[in-house]
C-alpha cells in the first residue's frame, strides 16, 4: 500500500506537484486561537491544515536544578493522544513523541526565548517551573511544526500566577524570542515544506529546523531512515528560515 502511495507522490513530484495541490514551499493554512483554556496559565489551539494540536502551559513554583540555581525550569511533554489517529496507542510516550517534544523543547530552551533568570523566586530554593503540555488532537501530518508554533503562542499568552501563589505580583512570561520549527521533507530528491500525513509516511528524510527572529538557527533534527546531501541540508535551512519569518509575521505578531 505504502509503495503505491510512494509511487503516486513521487510521480506527482516529478511534475512539480503535491498531493493536496500545494507548491513545494507552501505551508498549509494555519489558524491559531489563544487563551482557549481558562484553567491553564497560557494556551493555544493550532490548526495546521487538518492537523490539530492543543498546547497548555501550567506554571508552578518548585525547586531549581542545582547547577542553575537562579533560573526557572522548562518541562515540555507531548502526548500522541489515541483520539488523534488510529495509529496512536495509549501508554507511555514512544520514541516519536519523545523526539518531537525534545525538539520543541530544545528550540525554546536554546534560543533563550524565555528569560529564565526572571523566573527565579528565591535563588537556589524556589523558581517558576513552566510545564508545556502538547496534546495532539488530530494527526494530518507535521505535528512537529504545529506543536512548535502552538507552544510559542501559548507561552506568549502565559501569565505567571504569582499573586495566587503569594509570591508577589503577576507578570507576563518574560519572552525574548519566538523560535519556530519548520519541517522539510526529502521526497525523491525534492524538498517540500510542511509535509502532509502521506508525504510524511512515504518520505525518506525529514529535517526540522528551528529558527529565530534574527534568522539564526537554534535547533535542528534530521529524522527518518534516509540521508541528506550537504546541498539539501543547506537548502532546507534556507527554506525553513524564510518560512518561519513568514509565519511569525502573519500569525504571531498580533498575539
Amino acid at each position, binding site marked *: 500500500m505504502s509503495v503505491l502511495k510512494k509511487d503516486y507522490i513521487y510521480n506527482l513530484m516529478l511534475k512539480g506537484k503535491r498531493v493536496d495541490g500545494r507548491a513545494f514551499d507552501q505551508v498549509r493554512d494555519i489558524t491559531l486561537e489563544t487563551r482557549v483554556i481558562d484553567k491553564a496559565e497560557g494556551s493555544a489551539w493550532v490548526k495546521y491544515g487538518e492537523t490539530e494540536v492543543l498546547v497548555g502551559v501550567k506554571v508552578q513554583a518548585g525547586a531549581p536544578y542545582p547547577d542553575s540555581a537562579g533560573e526557572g525550569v522548562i518541562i515540555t511533554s507531548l502526548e500522541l493522544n489515541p483520539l488523534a489517529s488510529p495509529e496512536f496507542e495509549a501508554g507511555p510516550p514512544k520514541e516519536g513523541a519523545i523526539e518531537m517534544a*525534545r525538539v520543541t523543547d530544545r528550540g525554546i530552551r536554546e534560543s533563550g526565548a524565555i528569560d529564565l533568570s526572571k523566573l527565579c523566586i528565591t535563588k537556589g530554593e524556589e523558581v517558576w517551573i513552566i510545564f508545556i503540555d502538547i496534546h495532539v488532537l488530530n494527526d494530518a501530518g507535521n505535528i512537529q511544526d504545529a506543536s512548535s508554533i502552538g507552544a510559542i503562542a501559548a507561552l506568549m499568552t502565559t501569565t505567571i500566577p504569582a499573586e495566587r501563589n503569594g509570591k508577589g505580583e503577576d507578570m507576563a512570561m518574560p519572552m525574548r524570542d519566538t523560535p519556530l520549527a519548520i519541517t522539510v521533507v526529502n521526497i525523491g530528491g525534492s524538498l517540500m515544506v510542511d509535509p502532509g500525513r502521506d508525504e510524511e509516511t512515504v518520505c525518506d528524510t525529514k529535517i526540522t529546523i528551528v529558527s529565530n527572529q534574527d534568522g539564526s538557527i537554534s535547533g535542528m533534527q534530521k529524522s527518518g531512515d534516509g540521508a541528506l546531501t550537504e546541498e539539501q541540508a543547506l537548502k532546507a535551512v534556507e527554506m525553513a528560515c524564510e518560512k518561519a519569518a513568514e509565519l511569525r509575521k502573519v500569525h504571531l505578531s498580533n498575539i
Partner: protein
Amino acid sequence: MSDKPEKFIDENGLRLDGRQINEIRQMKIKIGVISRADGSCYLEWGNNKILVAVYGPRELHPRRLQKADSALIRYRYNMAAFSVEDRIRPGPNRRSIEISKVSREAFEPVVMTHLYPGAVIDVFAEVLQADAGTRTAAINAASIALADAGIPMKSLVSSCAVGKVDGQLVLDLNKAEDNYGDADLPVAMTQDGEITLLQMDGNLTQEEFKKALEMCKEGCRQIMEIQKEALRSKFADDQLAIEVPDEMVESIDIAVTLEDVVEEERETEVEAEASAEEITKSDAEAGSEDAEIEDAEDEYSVEDLEEADADEEILEVEEEPVDLIDEEAGNEDEKVATEGSETREQ
C-alpha cells in the same frame, strides 16, 4: 563540575585541552572485544569510553515485528549509571530514547537490510564513561562493530560534532565546550558525504551552519580513515587469512547480491559489495549462518545458502582481538564532568 572557564581559546589559538580548533581528540579502537557478540568494538575518544556489541542478523521475536522485505535495526544507546559525575538512574530515559532513535536512523541508509528479511540486527551501545560527544563516539564504534559482525553496508558511518565557543566554531567539543558553548551540531556522514544524522542546538547563523557542516565533513573524513585503519589492522594483515583469488571475489560478490536487484541500483551495489566482501572475510562464524538458514523463509534460503558457502570459502579468520590502543596515555588529569546539562533536559 568546573565553573565556566573565562576563555575557551587562548591567544595562540589553542583550546583548553591544547587542541587546534579543527583538531579531533585522540581515538583508540579495539575490535572484537566481546566474544559472544557477532561484532564488537571498544572505543576511547578523549575521555569517552564506549563499548558496542552487534548481534545479528538473527531471528526477530515477536514475529509480528518482523519486516517482510528487510531486516529491522534496533539501536540501544545506554549510559552506565557511573559514567557521569552525578549518578544517573539506570534504564532508558527521554534523552537516551531520542539518541537511540536518531542513531538508528544514522545507520538505516547504509545497512543493506534488504538482504535479511524478517531478521533483526541489534546494536547495543554502552557509554561506560562520558565526556562530551557520546552519541557521536557511539556511532563511530557501532559502525566498526557492524563491520566486525560482517553486516553488509554501503559505507562506514563516521560522526563528530562542531560547536561554537567564544564566537568561534570548533571541531569535536570537549566537556567544558559542550557544557558552556553556544552551539552543538552532531553530524554523521557516509564516505560520500551524505548526512545520516544531523542534530543541532544552540545558536548558529546560516553562514556559521554552512561552515560548521564543512568542518564536520573534514572531521568525519579523518575519523573514517581511523576506522578503516583499525579494521585493516585487525583483518587485512591477519597471517591466518588465505588470499582470496580474483575469480573467487566475483563469486562472493554474487553471493551477497540479490538476484532481482534493480538495474539502476546496480552501480551502488557493486561499490557496497566491495566493502561487504572485505567485511565478510572477517566473519568466522559460518556456523551461525547455518543456524539462520534453518529458520529462514523458504524463498530466501537459496541466497542464504550461497552466502554461507561463500563464507566457508573465505575461511576462518581467528577472532583474536588486535590491540590497537596507542599506549601513549590520554590526558588522564582532565576532569570528567557530568552530562548534567544534557541529562536534565526533560
